[in-house]
C-alpha cells in the first residue's frame, strides 16, 4: 500500500462510518479502540511522509485523478505536514488520555470518540487541503463536531457554551463562504495555489474586502479579539481532553487558515500589522482577564486565547525567524496547553468544583499530576529550561531584529500577568491547606502515559531545542516560499501511480 496524504482523511472517515457497525456487531469496546488505531495510523503516515518530503519537497496529492486547478488536491508541505503530524500526535495522546476517562464513560463514550476523531480529521483536512472551499468544508466538519463536543457533558452549562460557539461559528462559516464566493466570481478558481498565482488580478477594493471577510471568518476560529467570546466558555465547559484538543488542534487549524490566507493567498503586507496589533490586543485582554478567574479551566481558556494572540503577533512580525518562533509557539502551545488541560481536568475532577481555591493541597494527593501541571505552568510562562522559553526567545529576538522595543516590553509585561495567575495555581496546589474529605480518583495508567509523554517532550525540547528547530525551519520556509508552493501544486500534480 502506498502512503499518501489522502489516508489522513479517508481512513478516519471510513472508520467513523464503520465504528457504529463494528461496535454493534462485533464488540462494544471497538468503538473506543478503533479511533486510537486510526490515530496511530495517522502518526505512521505522518512519519513516513515527513521522511519522504525530506528529499521530495512538497507532496501534492490530487483526489480522484483531477488535475490540480480543477480537482481537489491535498498538499503535504513541510509546513502543513508539520501541523498535520502535530495534530495526529496530539489527537492520539488525547485519545489515549480520554480512553476510559471516568466522566466521559458516564456519557456515551463511543460518540465521544467518533466525534473527537472527526474533529481531528477535520483539522488535519484544513491543514492539508489545497482547495479553499474544501478548507471551508473541513472547517465546518471541525466546527460541528466541536459544537457537539463542547456540549458533550449533559450539565447545565455545556449547552450554553455550545450554543454560543455555534452562534459565532455560524458567522464564521457565513463570512468565509461569502469570501469564497467573491473570490470565485473574480478568479473562477478555488485552488489555493492558483488563487495565489492570480490574486494580483483582483481589483484592490474587492481584494481587501475578501481579506477582511477571511480575516474575520478565520479570526473567529483563531480566537482573535473581539471575535473570541465563545472561546472561554467552550474551553471551560467541554470535557478536559477536548479543551486540550481545542487548544492543540482546532485553534491551530484556524491560525493555519488565517496565515495561509495572508501569507500565501494574498501576500498582503498591510495585514502583517493587523496581525501584530490584533494579536497584541488579544493577548492583553485575554491574559488580563485570566488574572481574575477563579475557575481553573476558564483561566486556562483565557491563557490559551492569549497564547494564540501571541502566535498571531509572531506571524505578524513576518520575518523568517519570527515565523519559526510562531511555529515553535504553536508547537509549544499545543503540547503544553494539552498537558495543562489534561492534568488540570484531573485536578478539577478531584476537587469537586472547578474553582482554583478548591485545588489546595492536591499536590500531595496527586503528586505526579501536580508535578506535570507545574511543569506545564512553568513551561507556558516561558521559564527555562522548559520548551516555552525558546519559542518566546525566538519571537522576541525576531521582534528585536525589527527594533520593536515597545512591542517586546508589552509582551513581557503581559507575560508577568501570566506568571501571576499560573503561579497562584501552582502555589495553591502545593502549599494550600489540604481538604481531607476529598476522595481521590487516581488517573488511569493510559492517561498518565499520555501526560508523561507530553511532560517529557516539554523537558527534552526545553533542554535541547534542536530536536524541533529543523522541522520548524523547513516549515517556515515552506510557508513563506509562495513560489515553490504554487509551482509544486500546479506542475507536480501527476497523480501518484
Amino acid at each position, binding site marked *: 500500500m502506498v502512503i499518501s496524504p489522502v489516508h489522513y482523511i479517508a481512513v478516519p472517515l471510513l472508520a467513523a462510518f464503520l465504528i457504529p457497525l463494528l461496535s454493534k456487531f462485533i464488540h462494544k469496546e471497538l468503538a473506543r479502540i478503533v479511533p486510537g488505531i486510526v490515530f496511530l495510523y495517522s502518526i505512521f503516515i505522518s512519519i513516513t511522509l515527513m521522511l519522504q518530503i525530506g528529499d521530495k519537497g512538497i507532496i501534492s496529492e490530487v483526489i480522484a485523478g483531477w488535475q490540480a486547478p480543477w480537482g481537489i488536491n491535498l498538499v503535504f508541505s513541510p509546513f502543513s505536514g508539520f501541523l498535520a503530524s502535530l495534530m495526529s500526535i496530539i489527537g492520539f495522546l488525547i485519545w489515549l488520555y480520554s480512553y476510559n476517562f471516568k466522566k466521559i464513560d458516564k456519557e456515551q463514550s463511543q460518540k465521544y470518540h467518533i466525534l473527537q476523531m472527526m474533529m481531528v480529521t477535520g483539522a488535519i483536512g484544513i491543514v492539508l487541503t489545497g482547495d479553499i472551499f474544501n478548507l471551508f468544508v473541513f472547517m465546518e466538519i471541525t466546527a460541528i463536531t466541536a459544537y457537539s463536543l463542547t456540549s458533550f457533558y449533559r450539565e447545565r452549562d455545556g449547552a450554553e457554551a455550545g450554543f454560543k460557539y455555534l452562534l459565532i461559528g455560524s458567522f464564521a462559516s457565513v463570512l468565509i463562504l461569502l469570501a469564497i464566493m467573491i473570490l470565485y466570481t473574480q478568479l473562477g478558481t478555488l485552488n489555493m495555489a492558483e488563487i495565489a498565482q492570480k490574486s494580483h488580478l483582483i481589483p484592490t477594493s474587492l481584494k481587501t474586502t475578501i481579506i477582511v471577510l477571511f480575516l*474575520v471568518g478565520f479570526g*473567529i476560529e483563531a480566537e482573535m479579539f473581539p471575535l473570541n467570546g465563545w472561546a472561554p466558555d467552550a474551553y471551560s465547559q467541554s470535557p478536559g481532553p477536548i479543551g486540550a484538543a481545542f487548544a492543540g488542534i482546532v485553534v491551530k487549524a484556524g491560525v493555519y487558515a488565517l496565515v495561509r490566507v495572508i501569507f500565501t493567498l494574498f501576500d498582503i503586507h498591510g495585514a502583517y500589522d493587523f496581525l501584530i496589533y490584533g494579536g497584541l490586543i488579544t493577548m492583553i485582554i485575554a491574559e488580563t482577564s485570566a488574572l481574575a478567574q477563579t475557575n481553573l479551566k476558564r483561566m486556562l481558556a483565557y491563557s490559551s486565547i492569549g497564547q494564540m494572540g501571541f502566535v498571531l503577533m509572531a506571524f505578524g512580525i513576518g520575518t523568517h525567524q519570527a515565523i519559526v518562533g510562531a511555529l515553535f509557539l504553536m508547537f509549544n502551545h499545543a503540547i503544553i496547553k494539552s498537558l495543562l488541560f489534561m492534568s488540570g481536568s484531573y485536578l478539577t475532577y478531584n476537587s469537586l468544583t472547578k474553582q482554583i481555591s478548591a485545588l489546595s493541597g492536591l499536590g500531595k494527593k496527586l503528586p505526579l499530576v501536580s508535578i506535570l501541571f507545574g511543569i506545564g505552568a*512553568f513551561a507556558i510562562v516561558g*521559564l*527555562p529550561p522548559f520548551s516555552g522559553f525558546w519559542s518566546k526567545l525566538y519571537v522576541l529576538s525576531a521582534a*528585536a531584529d525589527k527594533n520593536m522595543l515597545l512591542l517586546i516590553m508589552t509582551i*513581557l509585561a503581559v507575560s508577568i500577568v501570566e*506568571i501571576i495567575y499560573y503561579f497562584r495555581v501552582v502555589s495553591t496546589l502545593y502549599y494550600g491547606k489540604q481538604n481531607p474529605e476529598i476522595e481521590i480518583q487516581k488517573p488511569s495508567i493510559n492517561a498518565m502515559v499520555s501526560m508523561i509523554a507530553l511532560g517529557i517532550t516539554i523537558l527534552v525540547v526545553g533542554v535541547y531545542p534542536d530536536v524541533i528547530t529543523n522541522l520548524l525551519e523547513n516549515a517556515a520556509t515552506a510557508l513563506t516560499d509562495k513560489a515553490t508552493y504554487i509551482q509544486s501544486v500546479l506542475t507536480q500534480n501527476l497523480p501518484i501511480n
Partner: protein
Amino acid sequence: MNSFFLILLILLAGAAISFALGKISSIISGTVAFLSIASASVLFFTQLKNNTYIEFPLGEIQLQWGIDSFGYIFALIVLGLGSLASLYSISYMQNKERTGIFYFNFVLVITSMVGIIFSQDFISFFIFWEIMTWSSYLLIIFNKKDVKEIGVKYMIFSAIGAYSMLTAIVMIKGNYNTFLISDAIQAGAFNFTNNEYIPILLLIGFAVKAATMPLHVWAPKAYSNSPMSFTVIFSGAMSKMGVLGMALVLVRIFTFNANNEAILPNFSPIILQQTLAWLGAITAVIATLYALMQDDAKKLLAYSSIAQLGYITVGLAIGTKLSVMAALFLAIVHGIFKGALFMVAGAVERQAGTTDMTKVSGLIRKMPFTFFTALIAIIALAGIPPLGGFVGKWMLYESLITESNSYFLVILVFFSSTSAFLYCYRFLFGLFLGQEEEATKDVKEAPITMIIPMLILSVLLMVTGAYPGILFDPIAKGMETIGFNNVTWDMSVLGNIWGNSVNMIYVWLTIVIVFIAAFIFLTLKGLKGTRYVSTKDISTSGEIPLEHENLTFQINFFQPFRRAAAPMYKRSMDKIWNEIGSGLESLFNFTRKIYTGNGQTYAIFVIAFLVLMLLLKDTLFLN
C-alpha cells in the same frame, strides 16, 4: 570530560539523588546534597583554571562558558557559602517534611548560580538566571506561610527583572547580532552613547535581585519566610548575582573611555550613576528604618540584608576603583556575616521554635556558641572594627568622600549605618539577652553540624578583619578582568587616595592587648567575691519578679525613635506597589467585563468588528 560539565553534572546528580532519597531519610538526602556541593566546590577550586573558556552550539546559538577572575569572586561566595549552608541544613531540616523537594531546589539554586558564573553568553546566563528564580521561588513558599502574597510578589518582581533583562538581551541580539557577553561589550552594547535602554534594562534586571529600591518589596518576606538554611544562600549568595550583573554593566558604562578613573563619556551616565547611588542609599536608609521596627528576628535580618545590599549598590554605582573594591568586599563579607546571622536565626528557630523576639529571650546561657557567632557577625554587620565588615564600610566611606563628590550621599549612608546599630543591638538583645522565658526553659544548644559552619564563618570574619588582603587578592584580579587597571592592595593596610591609611594589624594588636589585660584584671580581681546570679535577681525597686514573669523589655522597643522619625514611616514602597497592583487589578476586572456571557453580544462584536474592518480596510491593508 570537561570540568564545566562535570561540576554541573555532579550538582544536578546531587539534586536528583537527594530528591529521590528525600522520602527515605532527610539526613541522607541532606548529606548527599552537602557532598555534591562540597565535591563540586573542590573540583571548582582545584580543576578549573582562570580564564578557560569552552564554546559549544545549541541550535543556531553559540554558547560560551568560562571562568574568569571576576566570576571567581562570586564562585567563592556561592560555593563556599553553599557548602556550609548545606552542611548546616542537614540538621536544620532534620525533622521537616518534604525534604526531598527542599534539597532538590537547594542544590538546583546552587547549580544555577554556578551556571551563571560560568555563563559568558546571555542565553545560558538567562537560562540559569531563570532556573535560579523558580527554584528559589519553590523554596520561598516551602514553609507554606502566606504563600500567595510572598510567592507571587517574589515571582512578579523576579519576572519584572528577568524580563527587562530578556528585553535587553534580545535587543543586543537585534542590534549587535551576538549573544556573547564579551562581543556585546566590545561592540559597545553597554555604552551609553550607543543606546540608553540596554544598560538601563539590564540594571533593572539585576537591581531586582539586589533588592534595590523601589524593587525591593519582595525581599523582606521572601528572606524571612524561606527555610533559614536556604536564606543563608538566598541573602548571602543569590542577591550577589544581582551585584555581579550590576558590576559588569556599570563598570562598562563608566569606564568606557578611561580605565582608572571614572571619566564619564557624556552627561547621562552621571545621572544614571547618581540615581543608582541615591537609590542604593535610600534603600539602605529605608530598609534600616524598617529593620529596627521588626519584632521577628528573621524579618529584621531580611531588612538588614536589603540595607546592606543598598551599600553595595552605592559602591558599585560610584564606580571608582576604591568604591567598586569596597562594594565587592562588602558583597563577600555580607555573604559571610549575613550567612552566619541567618544560620543563627535558623538555629534559634529550630531549638526554640520561634524567632519572634517578643517570645524568645535570654538564650545566651542555653546557646553560647550560637550567641558567639551572632555577636561576631553583628559586630561585622554594624561595621565596628576590627572585623571584616568594618573594612568594607571604611573603604566605602573613604571612596565616597575622597573619590567622588557625593558628600550628601555619605550622610544618608552614614545615617543608615548608624541606625543599623539599633537593630544590631535589637537582634542580640531580643534573642539572646534579657531574662529567660519559661517557654524556652529546656532549649539546648544547636547540634554540632549547625555549630561548625557558624563557627567557621565567625572565624572567617575575624580573619578578614585582620587580613583583608586575602579577599583583596581575588577582588583585585577580578576588577582587573572587568576593566580596571593597577588595582593595588595590601595585606592588612587600608588606604585611600588622600594618603591616609588604617593598619588592621595594629588595631587588632591594640584591641587584643587591652582585652587580655582588662580581662585578666577584671576577672582575677575579687575573684572570690564575684557572684553570678540569675537574671531574676535584679534591682526593681525591691519588687520580686515571679518565676513566670518576664520583665525583659521587648515590645515597642524603639518607640521613641519611631516617634522621632515618624514622617519617614508614613509612606512605604510596599503600599505604593500594592496600590498600583490593586489599581491594575480593578482595571483588568473592568476590561474583562467585555465577555458579558450573552452570546448575542459576542455576535454583535463580530458584526461590529466586520463593519469596522470593512470601513478601514483600505487604510489597513493598502499601505
